[in-house]
């Protein structure tokens, strides 16, 4: 692990702490809630940034993985297995310690899966779906890939919206908190500050792992694929392998984020799987610079925070749409990489030059 990277992560952790202390001091501790939520959405964006920025692919359906993770965990921890107590597998699961009894909001006893196996299942399921879908779909390129991922996202959304067991339009609520350490749990009536630090820790660890990945041989292979896939392939880089792996990793991250946020909020709804959510993730990746992890993290925290606090009001979708257009036209490498002179050259009419594909 390179010392430079460790320093970066340490700086990040320090920032997290400073913000928390500042918020308490300024008596705006309630802001920590939106920061925590933003952190979990940022987890999705980071994974997507790896896939889009480094591997150079596109996914317009990543919200689907978030939803799969969240819904799986929600269902498993809320579906009352009480009536099925006597069946073989429920009894077995109980013996192994996978189940937990708790009292739900209405006061009745619910026998459901403990959040930990639920979380594990959720992430594994997300990864499995990503793998199954990724292998055929990632053979496509450009707009075909974009459309395929869009289609997948729409299917998950339709299923979430249309299935009664998944709560249809209302989604699932009453999701129990996810215990992390004795006394600390994600969600529930747990301390706002504790939750904030849990989220911060998750982000810090993720950044550590991603930075490590990106600066390793794998990272270089990914960049080679992004730069010139055919050339990379000719040089012996197993492009399909890397693309699928990156896809699965980014999907797993999204799934994990879904689990954590669902337990934090205590609920999940079909809107988490909507196309607009996927598009927002892409917009943030674009702003942060495809391929700049810290830039993406910063962009994501800021934009998600503002959106969650309602600063964009009813124009929320419009803001992200505008971001997409503006960033793609003027700063495809991300805001931080703007070269104003080059950007302004776009304002002069070009000389009949034909558009080049790819």
């Amino acid at each position, binding site marked *: 692990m390179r010392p430079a990277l460790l320093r970066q992560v340490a700086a990040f952790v320090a920032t997290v702490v400073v913000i928390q202390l500042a918020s308490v001091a300024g008596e705006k501790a309630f802001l920590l809630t939106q920061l925590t939520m933003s952190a979990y959405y940022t987890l999705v964006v980071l994974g997507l940034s790896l896939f889009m920025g480094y591997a150079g692919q596109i996914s317009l359906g990543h919200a689907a993985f978030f939803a799969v993770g969240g819904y799986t965990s929600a269902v498993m921890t809320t579906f009352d297995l009480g009536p099925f107590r006597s069946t073989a597998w429920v009894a077995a699961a109980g013996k192994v310690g996978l189940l937990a009894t708790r009292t739900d909001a209405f006061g009745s006893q619910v026998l459901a899966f403990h959040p930990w196996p639920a979380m594990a299942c959720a992430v594994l399921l997300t990864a499995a779906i990503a793998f199954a879908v990724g292998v055929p779909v990632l053979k496509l390129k450009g707009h075909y890939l974009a459309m395929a991922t869009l289609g997948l996202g729409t299917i998950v959304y339709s299923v979430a919206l249309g299935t009664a067991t998944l709560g249809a339009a209302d989604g699932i609520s009453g999701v129990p908190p996810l215990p992390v350490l004795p006394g600390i749990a994600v969600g529930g009536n747990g301390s706002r500050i504790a939750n904030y630090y849990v989220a911060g820790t998750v982000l810090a660890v993720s950044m550590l792992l991603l930075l490590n990945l990106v600066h390793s041989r794998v990272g270089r292979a990914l960049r080679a694929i992004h730069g010139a896939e055919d050339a990379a392939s000719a040089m012996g880089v197993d492009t399909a392998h890397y693309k699928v792996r990156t896809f699965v990793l980014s999907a797993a991250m999204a799934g994990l984020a879904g689990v954590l946020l669902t337990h934090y909020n205590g609920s999940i709804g079909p809107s988490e799987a909507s196309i607009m959510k996927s598009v927002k993730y892409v917009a943030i990746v674009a702003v942060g610079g495809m391929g700049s992890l810290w830039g993406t993290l910063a962009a994501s925290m800021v934009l998600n925070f503002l959106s969650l606090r309602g600063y964009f009001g009813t124009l929320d979708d419009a803001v992200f749409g505008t971001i997409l257009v503006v960033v793609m036209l003027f700063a495809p490498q991300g805001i931080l990489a703007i070269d104003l002179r080059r950007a302004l050259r776009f304002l002069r*009419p*070009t*000389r*009949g*030059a*034909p558009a080049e594909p790819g």
Partner: protein
Amino acid sequence: MLRIRNLDAGYGSLTVLRRVSIHVKPGEIVAIVGANGAGKSTLLKTIVGLVRPRAGEVLFEGTDVSRTPTEAIVRAGCSLVPEGRQVFADMTVWENLLLGAHVQRGKGGRAGLQADLDRICGLFPVLAERRRQLAGTLSGGEQQMLAMGRALMAHPRLLMLDEPSMGLAPLIVRDIFDIVVRISAAGSTVLLVEQNARSALKVAHRGYVLETGTITMQGTSEELLANRDVQRAYLGKDANEESERGAP
């Protein structure tokens, strides 16, 4: 007719041409020879406006066209037969020629258009035969003729050809160069760029040698053909082959 002064041009951050200066007088055939990657195609593309120069001037009949869009340059009388032919593969031969006449629209009307088509078919009889065929089904040589015919439909005063012999059999190459001479005789000025230095210099009046983006030699075609450096670098192989076969 064409004067280029200290031209720098390239793609993105890559500079391909450095301080290139050439000129072409009316009625001449000028050849630019050089190896692959020397920048010959870039030069023609810059002249016609597909690439924008970084520095220097491109003067066509006295006017600086370095910032003029391709559309206007073609209308002003400078046409390019691009590298690789670039015909409209899924359109018929006739439609290809029709499109070449775009800049002549309005001048001469229907009768003028028909006269132009007849003239081109006279120059390239095979095109008349295949007028209803899709351009993509033509042979390499026929496509080259189509591309040249298409460019000629625009009544160019300066006709530029980018590697006309590329990918063509030697016999066809000979036909193409014969036609270049005929086009010149009919009044057009020709600037051609070629890897096949021997054939190019044999039909040209003057020539330039372009090496990695700069002009290294210039002179009449006789001077260049006789020049030992040129012979060694660009004519060696051809010279041996031709003397074995008994060159024309």
